[in-house]
């Protein structure tokens, strides 16, 4: 097994997800079979091969430094689950 339950828990914490014990078991086994399948990539000799992010080679897509019209604050926060005074409200962040 590539992935232990503890690792699944670590990855879940990184991704801000939580799972029941049952889900963790199921995910651990499903993720392991997927990762086993991906092992085939190790058969490919990729020495010296440049990794591609895009299939199309583009460079230098820029915009000019020009200010456009922003949203009205009411519009910006319209979809917010919680808001107050044009700000998005969240549970207290401890610093």
């Amino acid at each position, binding site marked *: 097994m590539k*992935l232990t339950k503890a*690792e*699944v828990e670590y*990855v*879940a914490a*990184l*991704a*801000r*997800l*939580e*799972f029941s014990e049952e889900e963790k078991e199921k*995910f651990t086994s*499903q*993720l392991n*079979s*997927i*990762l086993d*399948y*991906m092992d*085939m*990539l*190790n058969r*490919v000799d*990729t020495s010296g*091969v*440049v*990794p*591609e*992010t*895009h*299939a*199309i080679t*583009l460079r230098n*897509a820029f*915009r000019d430094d020009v200010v456009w019209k922003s*949203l009205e604050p009411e*519009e*910006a926060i*319209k*979809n*917010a*689950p*919680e808001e107050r005074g044009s700000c*998005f409200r*969240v*549970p*207290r*962040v*401890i610093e």
Partner: protein
Amino acid sequence: MAAGLHESTIHELQEKLRRGDVTASEITEAVFSRIEAVDGRIKSFITIMRDSAAACARRADEAIRAGKAGPLTGIPIAVKDIMCTKGVRTTCGSRILENFFPPYDATVVRKLKEGGAVIVGKTNMDEFAMGSSTETSFYGITRNPWDLGRIPGGSSGGSAAAVAAGECIASLGSDTGGSIRQPASLCGVVGMKPTYGRVSRYGLIAFASSLDQIGPFTRDAEDCAILLNAICGYDPLDSTSVPVETPDYRSFVGKDIKGWKFGVPREYLIEGIDPEVAGLMEESIGVLESLGAERVDISLPHTEYCVAVYYVIAPAEASSNLARYDGVKYGYRSPDARDLIEMYRKSRSEGFGAEVKRRIMIGTYALSSGYYDAYYKKASQVRTLIKRDFEEAFRKCDVIVTPTAPTAAFRIGEKTDDPLQMYLSDIFTISANLAGIPGISTPCGYTGKGLPVGLQLLAGHFQEGKLIQAASALERNAKFEKRRPAL
């Protein structure tokens, strides 16, 4: 039986509108009557936009009367619910966006509106486009109009089913690993994934940014060209959109393909491919040969790695793209969270479905410290090799021919418990996304059970015209009788 308005093509309706035989309002009315009659069984739509569509149709009629009609004026078009529509709920098939009303239009939506198209609604899809069956939507399963016990394919299943069932004239989908071509094949319509960068992604809710591309679902190749003309082109709001001229794709319709070379990759004749599907492909190749084209054997040596590469890169990008759904700015926030960490974990765990969470987990793992090189970097390198395979292949042929999917539509629930089996159903379509090349699925016949089967054609970067030309040649010389689903 003559085709009803809702079963017509764009070019047929254009002609009727031009001649004044019909009004945009009548066409729109016919489409909504059809939706009313069949959508309860198919469930192509998440949101139906009846009122705004009626208003839009009236404006289209005015434009036609004023002689200002464009190619899409008055044409009812459905849009996959992954493209943002200003003021109209956009869910991406997810609970986490159940109440999201974008303050802006996706570039393609703006183009449709400016072209006078009548947007009829937002179609169902696999949650965040992650799936091949439209079974993972929070808003329910879409059914295949040809057999309601079967899936329509996915992730753009709603858009494909809507065109097949006459609930719109054409539609837009998005394709990250086959999400336009596979459902087009399974629903018996034409579906194209353009070259990466051909159509703006601005406003397309990201699944895997380096693979996603918007494209049309239509009833024939000519409509595909018309819709592609309307949505393609450089967009300064998308850094990955390509600043090159676009041809008039309609000009490729009906041109002959004499002397063309059609490549058949030997690696695609794999186990698990349905003999009926393979047979229909051979039949199509026969048609091509009869038109003076030549069949050539080609090799795409890294084909077997495509699925593995895809299922590293797409989830990795998705894990990052979906981090913004955190319950702060929009979308679902769990009512049970007591602190910040709980707000994140509960909102995301309750807001996302199982398949989305599975892919976020794979992607997060593949990018995490210590595994990046083994997974993400390795996959990106193999991706380079896959792209080179195609460059090599297109030196020997004009267009590559493959089945679109290994089988016709499968039964609802058949593959939901085995993610890997589900992933393997994308085996023929994924490589085009990895290589950024355009691909089209065009109907090539029916199985013994009466299910439609599609043929996939692939061409080099920015060669969509060749795909239109080949698909239209096949369509006009098809050996099978075109059917409509019995609903």
